[in-house]
């Protein structure tokens, strides 16, 4: 089979089966690209994981791009990524259509009423783990609160003030990056 078609199809399957996002997709990706097809080695797979930890973008997209590039260059990257998002596109549009049609049912409304506070809670959890990461450079609750990163605190405080002053999100992210770089040079 044409390698591009195969890439598309394999990443279609990965996109369809990785439920739970993020790390939950790792075993699926590994099974297909490392174990079945030997497109990349285990070391490279761990590299993708490391890169994904520190670059923008979901790990699934990153893996699709990395594997695609390695197998068939830039075109491969595009094809693999397209394959990966195809199931999402179909399912999301389908559910949007169903919501439009049946969204007024009390059962659906009730379910969503239960989900909304859950999302608020999950956003708060993500916020908290990002505070740990920004100020204490650890992903879970810091073991030693006195061992904080002063640069992280400075940028976080400035960024909080900027948010309150209604600075645009993009300016804020970009500015914080530059602030990190400047502090890295100075301290």
């Amino acid at each position, binding site marked *: 089979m044409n390698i591009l078609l195969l890439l598309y199809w394999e990443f279609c399957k990965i996109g369809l089966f990785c439920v739970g996002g993020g790390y939950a997709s790792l075993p699926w990706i590994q099974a297909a690209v490392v174990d079945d097809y030997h497109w990349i080695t285990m070391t490279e797979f761990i590299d993708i994981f490391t890169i994904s930890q520190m670059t923008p973008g979901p790990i699934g997209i990153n893996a699709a791009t990395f594997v695609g590039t390695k197998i068939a260059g830039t075109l491969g990257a595009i094809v693999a990524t397209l394959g990966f998002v195809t199931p999402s596109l179909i399912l999301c549009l389908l559910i949007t259509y169903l919501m439009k049609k049946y969204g007024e049912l009390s059962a659906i409304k009730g379910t969503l009423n239960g989900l909304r506070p859950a999302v608020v809670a999950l956003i708060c959890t993500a916020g908290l783990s990002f505070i740990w990461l920004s100020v204490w450079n650890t992903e879970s609750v810091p073991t030693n609160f006195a061992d904080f990163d002063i640069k992280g605190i400075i940028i976080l405080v400035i960024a909080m003030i900027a948010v309150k002053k209604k600075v645009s999100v993009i300016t*804020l992210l970009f500015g914080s*990056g530059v602030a*990190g770089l400047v502090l890295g040079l100075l301290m």
Partner: protein
Amino acid sequence: MSNENQQLDDAVNKLNIVPGTRHFFWVLFKSTFLISAFTVGGGMVIIPLLKKKYVDEYGWINDKDTLDITAIAQSLPGVMAVNASIMLGYKMAGFMGTLVTILATVLPPLITITIIAFFYDLFAHNYYVQMLLKGMQCGATAVIIDVGLNLVYKLFKKKLLLPILIAAGTFIASLCFNVNPMYCVLVDAIIGLMLLRDPKYN
């Protein structure tokens, strides 16, 4: 700036760009692309940033729809950020909206990884790259805190006990007991289905 002026300013800002126009699609693409390009972290990180932009800055979509879409995005297969951007795009501007948001979400990692694939070592061990990323991470943290607190405030303002209990329970489960968000969402969906069908919860 006085509070009144601020509000007027917000209103003008929100009315300025009408969904469906060519200018809207350009602004939508640009802001989604840049947020995707500058945000390190999973779906629960990028969605508050998108929410800040779409809801708070432009008023293209409301809090409620954003939260609904986030919950559905979490439960569907695939990457949460992509799922959310597909549905947010559709809600704001139909199929064209979806095309714009999905492209703007996927392109930045596609470009970044293609480049990094060639310069991995240089990238991974460079102190300045790490400091740049660290700074952006702190910026994202500030936005998530703001969005999170804002949503909690609105939740409490409604003075309904059950939704508050659901939020508190989910927060404790995911934070203290590391329960997979998928299971939290599933349990809360069932609670909602059984107990929150009264219109006052809508």
